[in-house]
């Protein structure tokens, strides 16, 4: 599948309750090593309850400039969280469905292992 199919889809919990939209897809470079870079494994989906237009990513970094733009955009994405691939039950054409008892992880990018 292509990423364009997935981005912006509504994300539902196991009972069909709406949690938000798929704002971004997170990958981690820890798959099978190749000559140049390792495989990029899908780690999970960043879910934003209010807006899918998340390309600026202020909710995932410590950027606070330019004030008050950064704050406004962060506020638009308040309540964003990351769900891991293991918690995804089904990806349909029109929605992503999570497994019962999924975990809401912090979407923050800082303090994560950046070892290459």
């Amino acid at each position, binding site marked *: 599948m292509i990423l364009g199919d997935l981005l912006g889809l509504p994300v539902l919990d196991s009972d069909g309750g709406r949690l938000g939209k798929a704002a971004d897809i997170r990958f981690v470079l820890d798959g099978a090593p190749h000559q140049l870079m390792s495989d990029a494994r899908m780690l999970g989906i960043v879910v934003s309850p209010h807006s899918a*237009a998340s*390309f*600026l990513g202020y909710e995932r970094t410590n*950027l606070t*400039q*330019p*004030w*008050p*733009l*950064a704050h406004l955009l962060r506020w638009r994405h308040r309540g964003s969280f990351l769900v891991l691939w293991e918690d995804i039950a089904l990806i349909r054409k029109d929605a992503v469905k999570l497994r019962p008892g999924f975990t809401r992880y912090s979407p923050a990018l800082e303090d994560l292992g950046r070892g290459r």
Partner: protein
Amino acid sequence: MKRILGVALGILTAIGGFVDIGDLVTNAVVGSRFGLSLVWVVAVGVVGICLFANMSGRVAAASGRATFEVIRERLGPRAGLANLSASFLINLMTVTAEIGGVALALQLASSVHYLLWIPVAAVAVWLVIWRVKFSIMENVTGLLGLTLIVFAVALFLLKPDWGVLAGQALAPAVPAEETAPTYWYYAIALFGAAMTPYEVFFFSSGAVEEGWTVKDLVQSRINVLVGFPLGGLLSVAIAGCAAVVLLPAGISVTSLSQVILPVAEGAGKLGLAFVLVGVVAATFGAALETTLSSGYTLAQFFGWSWGKFRRPVQAARFHLSMIICLLVGIGVLATGVDPVLVTEYSVVFSAIALPLTYLPILIVSNDPQYMGKHVNGRAVNVLALAYLVVILVASVAAIPLMIVTGAGA
């Protein structure tokens, strides 16, 4: 010594490169109708273009990314495409206007009809883009454009009542025979002419063309902060000349010959010769910049190979798109449409497209991922945000004012 020369050259080209057909026409029109009562807009516009040109240059130097690549990355493909469509159309209009300006100036110099000069001008623009080294292109047109200083000289020679001019400039008021909407319509046109988006596209792409690094930042800052304000003074001189000669005579500017009429009156035949060289150089230089900007914006949005520093075969789509733009420009002018009119519309449409260009620059220049430690300082951010508000207001007000005033008629 070499370094000082470099700085001097940069400043001189910035002055000469600041004025284009949009500034020439709009300032003369405004001067002939409103005196110097809109000079404050030029000042506001110059500070704005200094601020954002400097920022886009810093982004280009720190990250190697030109403005339109950044626009696509930060706004995403949809808003990016909307921006591309708007910027590209305005750019195309400006290319058309500049080539028309070159042809009109050549007509004044040669009394050969301007329609015959149009293909000549367009081919000359193409040849320079095809063959000439970027730095030579920029320096030669910039230095020749400096002859526009004759507008300032003429203003002195006209021996105006400085008190009256200063009064108009310092205590701006809508002249009795004009309406407030018309006043504000021309304020937006002047603002658009000073802050035209192609200037930042060209400036940032030029930084990449010349391989700037953060070491070149100081020089670029001096070029911008000294050169653009002095260029702005040239704009004011153009308006001043019109205010002294044309306003009392009741002549409102509708042609290029009226723009340079005050110079002929103030500085005689020699002045006229200078101003013709200046107008040809300034419009020709701007025709180069806008044509290149058309190529830059398209190539940067779609990720094509671009740049004058490459052989044309190594940037094929970039060069092809510029050839097509020039052909379209010739085609539009061949219909006999008045280049001065095209210019007047292009500056107002520029004002409409401003927010989409300047917002992404501001966002990226705060992002350490691109900028490392060269992110914006707090003062720059505060000023830039204030400008974004002004830009937004101008952009929203432009179309309604255009309709209400019948495009300033």
